[in-house]
């Protein structure tokens, strides 16, 4: 992070709500009489007590006391929002002039902000269960142990587009069962329990991943194909590492025509080299040939048994690149998803999997990062019972403080100590600690984030969170994990309310690698990037798609977003950046020359590819497997960039017409079929908003490759919005969006705030959203100003006390 990070003057005052400065309205605010008149003239025809369109009546709203009548605040917020976006009255109905729009919006917002500053409503989220990613990270930071949360816990439900929403994160008997199993496994792993049974774990390379060139930064230079994985070895002991090679469709091991050298490495040290191929009998080549014994069993000896010390280690298996071809000069080849490839036993030899089994003859390790973390003391062999218990108490207090994320008292430690005693009586000191650790890991104060009301606070009153509670909010927001020692110490000292300290902590946390969680979890969900892993483009429609491309697209956007945040760019640069990150595979897909090799590097890009709208990941997750969907793309833009999801479609929607429908005598294009669909007025009401946005991206096919025609018909990427605005192509769409930068920034703020709070953004958050956005506007919407704005906002810093 640069020094620029510390933003002075983000317009929020701690704890007393927001300073009501709204800088986007230059027009003088409207008077209450003018507001009333405007409502009567333009709105009340539909939104009256009788018809209540959209469940809203504006007939009797008290325009003289905006923000002061609690029951009316929600309606006023809605009005302000619609006016600001010029979204109402609907197109075709009489509308006020622009100045009147701006004046009334400004007057409403000023009044609402002032009322909120005087009597803030920060919301009242319930206790907040950790989702499984947070759980995994908490285990990592509590016990220096890497676990695979997908194996331990079921996935979490999402709401408001995110999987960290307190209201949604429930506990079921199944989940508790998993927590208990996880606690048992984790405590065994952390301490290196010698009773851990041997297990078999298989790491598989996807079949449709082309294993050409160097596959990752974790693999040696001059290598081709293969796999590098991090694997946890729970104990010191013997392990068996076994490699399997990929088979062609007829079960022939691929590439046996010539000798291949395979290298197996542990933490980058070579532990074994194998040579396979070129020395056995192969079946004659014809369509029905059955594999010979050799062709089925040539990989059977690819196995080593060796002594490994406990810990998480990097295992890799890769082929030595004998071809001596310059990395990147690729020969023509069939697509990996094609029939031609699946049957080709002469394709290059490829790794199918690495299987690791063990431990055999295990021993408890003397020293591992996890044991170092847990055993802050260790009783001597001859220690008295009292000394042993004192040490256990010390260990458990230190674990409980970090696990519960607050200072702990004897009342917290005592129940853990009694678990310790039970375990100790059965199996000794370490068994006792292990049993108590299991208790910590299923304790509701570990599994839930608990925020308490201070003593004496009136029910329903807004109050500032305690410093340690604020520390947890910060660490779960920026790191998706528990606070580290430094943050917890600052909070325990009571210094976190100091603005300079708070901002220094935020900036330290963002510079820490743990903030990758923000990239992965916030951006991954906001932009739907997480759906990339499940995208399944149809090989018939997109023969070019393979796992390499999937990985490359995912990585491109992740690197791009990360650079945006780490360089503290303007949020608007997400749309207008003139660079991206590419490797050869992706560059070839995009038609960008002179990018060689599998590693990613920053590459300048021109108009159409610039920014998120030109990135393969976004374009793929908003397509169907076998075609583009202008509607899905348009919806993505409306929902995620403009914060204006269209009203949901009515029930019993007629489907798209048949492709051979119409009197042109030829198949209709997708765009033409959609245009027929839109002749129905019911459908048109929403599609006139979504489709034009999506049409402008039609030059990108369903996996984001550039195209100029679809089945021979030229692509038409020109669009017109209901209000008559015309634009064309990705650049046109980008300019259109940048022309509404306030709406875009406000949407980013709302999404980020939803994620930061773990709850839906409600009408009473309107003043905070405006304050954060306008504060950030003064800093060109830099990520630092948005994030600090959120951290210092009323809903982040405060909560409303519980009502019985």
């Amino acid at each position, binding site marked *: 992070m640069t020094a620029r990070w510390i933003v002075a003057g983000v317009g929020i005052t701690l704890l007393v709500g927001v300073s009501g400065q709204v800088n986007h309205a230059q027009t003088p605010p409207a008077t209450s009489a003018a507001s009333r008149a405007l409502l009567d003239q333009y709105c009340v025809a539909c939104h009256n007590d009788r018809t209540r369109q959209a469940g809203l009546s504006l007939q009797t709203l008290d325009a003289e006391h905006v923000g002061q009548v609690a029951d009316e605040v929600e309606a006023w917020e809605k009005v302000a929002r619609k006016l600001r976006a010029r979204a109402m009255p609907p197109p075709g109905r009489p509308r006020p002039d622009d100045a009147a729009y701006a004046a009334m919006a400004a007057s409403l917002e000023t009044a609402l902000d002032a009322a909120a500053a005087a009597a803030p409503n920060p919301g009242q989220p319930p206790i907040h269960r950790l989702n499984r990613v947070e759980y995994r990270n908490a285990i990592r930071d509590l016990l220096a142990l890497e676990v695979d949360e997908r*194996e331990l816990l079921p996935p979490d439900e999402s709401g408001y587009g995110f999987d960290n929403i307190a209201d949604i994160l429930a506990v079921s008997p199944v989940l508790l069962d998993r927590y208990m199993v996880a606690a*048992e496994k984790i405590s065994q792993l952390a301490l290196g329990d010698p009773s851990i049974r041997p297990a078999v774990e298989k790491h598989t390379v996807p079949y449709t991943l082309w294993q050409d060139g160097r596959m990752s930064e974790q693999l040696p230079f001059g290598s081709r194909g293969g796999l590098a994985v991090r694997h946890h070895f729970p104990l010191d002991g013997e392990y068996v590492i076994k490699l399997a090679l990929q088979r062609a469709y007829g079960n022939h091991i691929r590439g046996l025509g010539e000798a291949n050298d395979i290298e197996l490495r542990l933490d980058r040290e070579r532990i074994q080299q194998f040579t396979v191929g070129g020395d056995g009998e192969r079946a004659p080549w014809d369509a029905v040939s059955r594999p010979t014994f050799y062709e089925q069993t040539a990989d059977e000896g690819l196995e080593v048994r060796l002594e490994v010390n406990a810990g998480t280690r990097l295992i890799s298996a890769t082929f030595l690149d004998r071809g001596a071809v310059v990395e990147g000069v690729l020969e023509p080849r069939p697509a990996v998803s094609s029939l031609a490839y699946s049957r080709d036993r002469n394709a290059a030899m490829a790794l199918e999997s690495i299987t690791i089994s063990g431990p055999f003859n295990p021993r408890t390790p003397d020293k591992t990062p996890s044991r170092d973390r847990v055993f802050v003391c260790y009783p001597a062999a001859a220690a008295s019972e009292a000394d042993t218990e004192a040490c256990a108490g010390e260990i458990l207090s230190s674990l409980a403080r970090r696990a519960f994320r607050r200072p702990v008292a004897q009342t917290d430690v005592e129940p853990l100590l009694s678990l310790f005693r039970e375990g100790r009586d059965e199996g000794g000191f370490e068994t006792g600690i292990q049993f108590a650790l299991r208790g910590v890991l*299923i304790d509701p104060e570990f599994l839930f984030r608990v925020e*308490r009301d201070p003593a004496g606070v009136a029910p329903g009153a807004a109050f500032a969170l305690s410093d340690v509670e604020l520390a947890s909010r910060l660490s779960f927001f920026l790191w998706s994990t528990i606070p580290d020692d430094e943050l917890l110490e600052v909070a325990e000292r009571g210094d976190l309310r100091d603005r300079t300290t708070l901002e220094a902590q935020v900036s330290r946390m963002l510079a820490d690698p743990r903030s990758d969680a923000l990239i992965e979890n916030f951006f991954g969900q906001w932009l739907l990037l997480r759906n990339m892993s499940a995208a399944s483009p149809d090989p018939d429609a997109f023969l070019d798609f393979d796992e390499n491309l999937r990985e490359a697209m995912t990585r491109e956007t992740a690197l791009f977003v990360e650079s945006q945040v780490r360089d503290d760019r303007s949020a608007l640069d997400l749309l207008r950046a003139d660079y991206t990150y590419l490797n050869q595979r992706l560059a070839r897909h995009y038609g960008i020359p002179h990018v060689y090799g599998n590693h990613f590097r920053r590459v300048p890009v021109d108009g159409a590819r610039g920014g998120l709208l030109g990135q393969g990941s976004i374009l793929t997750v908003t397509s169907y*497997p076998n075609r583009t969907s202008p509607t899905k793309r348009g919806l993505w833009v409306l929902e995620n960039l403009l914060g204006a999801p269209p009203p949901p*479609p009515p029930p019993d929607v007629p489907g798209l017409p048949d492709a051979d429908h119409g009197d042109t005598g030829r198949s209709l294009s997708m765009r033409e079929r959609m245009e027929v669909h839109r002749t129905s007025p019911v459908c048109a009401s929403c599609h006139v908003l979504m489709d034009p946005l999506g049409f402008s991206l039609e030059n990108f096919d369903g996996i984001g490759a550039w195209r100029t025609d679809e089945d021979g018909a030229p692509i038409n990427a020109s669009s017109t919005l209901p209000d008559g605005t015309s634009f064309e192509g990705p650049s046109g769409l980008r300019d259109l969006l940048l022309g509404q930068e306030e709406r875009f920034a406000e949407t980013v703020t709302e999404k980020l705030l939803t994620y930061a709070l773990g709850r839906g953004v409600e009408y009473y958050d309107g003043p905070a959203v405006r304050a954060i956005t306008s504060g950030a506007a003064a800093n060109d919407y830099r990520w630092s100003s948005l994030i600090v704005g959120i951290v210092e906002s009323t809903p982040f810093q405060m909560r409303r006390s519980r009502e019985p």
Partner: protein
Amino acid sequence: MIVTRKHLPRRTFLRGLGVTLALPMLDSMVPAFGGAQVRAAEAVRRLGVVYVPNGMFMPNWTPEVEGGPLEVTQTLQPLAQFKDQMLMVSGLCSEEGIARPGEGAGDHARAAGAFLTGVHPKKTEGHDIRAGVSMDQIAARVLGQETQLASLELSLESSERAGSCDPGYSCAYANTLCWSSATTPLPMASDPRAVFERLFGTSGTTDPAAWLKARQHDRSLLDMVTAKVARLSGELGPRDRVKLNEYLEAVRDVERRIQMAERQTTRELPAMDQPVGVPEKFEEHAKLMFDLQVLAYQADLTRVITFMMGHETSNRAYPDIGVPDAHHALSHHGGDKILIERLKKVDSHLTAMFAHYVDRLASTPDGNGTLLDSVMILYGSGLSDGNRHDHHDLPALLVGGGAGQLAGGRHMRVAKDTPNTNLFLTMLDKLGVAIETMGDSNGRLDTLSV
């Protein structure tokens, strides 16, 4: 895959056990482990629900002939050999899945939410999700008294997906069919390894003694947690207590299971290798999940299983059978002949997976017959024609002997717009679970066992 090292001896479950068994703790207000007397020596009755998402291509499903013998339509082909154990009910409707004025889209979320509950799901993305107690959970309250697990909820699709599901509806609606209360949707497990551990614990074996020993250790942990929750409860408000109560009920559920297991230590179980995770291929995953269901019934760990072959709006493609299209998109075929052909393939493929299950049940001895004789499985969907989001005339097929309560080999058609909850009430009757009404029910079907 299941490796049966020894067959279960033929035996009658629970005969002579005559003990007091605990009610599943569905209501935290009643004291734990109060109990109802369980009638011993009755034939074991089991309920299954197997759900197909996104509706079906109905012309290939519904037989033209009513009455018997059951005509094996194209979609039913894989099940042909079991047709005498199949009873098709046509004409049922899930009225509560239909949009109310102003609700707009969301037919898939509503279809799933209303399917087993007969209650109109509240349109919301947030904390106030609400439907009703589902049929399987009503059955579990009674059938679950005699087993360690009251019910199992399984799916072939993980509930992970970024972004919204059906617009305006929490993903919870489309991801599950099971509701233990009007506000508690139950998550579905899709990882076979996790399902195995749920059934048999982490010891890697199906030996019940190993499981029990490990769990008895848990008792002190559970006691500690219970005390902690009580302490926290006093400090927190009503909305937090809802969460804590969920947690506490889960704790009691585990305690109940331990108690139950202590009475069942003599049980012999078939051995199975612990699955390593989710298989890559759909077919392997489906068969493995079905195998686990057979095992759960066989070991009598539960008598109620609900299984979704995909969540509503599932966009799974089926490349292995030559269908590259996303299922949900395909279900909106718009009359396109090529797409319809593919949709038919998907329907048949799902039936074929189900047929594997039925075959396994039919070949697993149970009591004096097979598991297929004792089970009553509903195979169907919450939509009929997915293309139009039609909630009427749903596909519904009852499979199994229902412990002598079902007369199969027939196709019956009920009066138009009969709520599917009428079928459920009748099924519950036959399972020995007597309730007056549920959801939108307005009667019973009287011809299931004719």
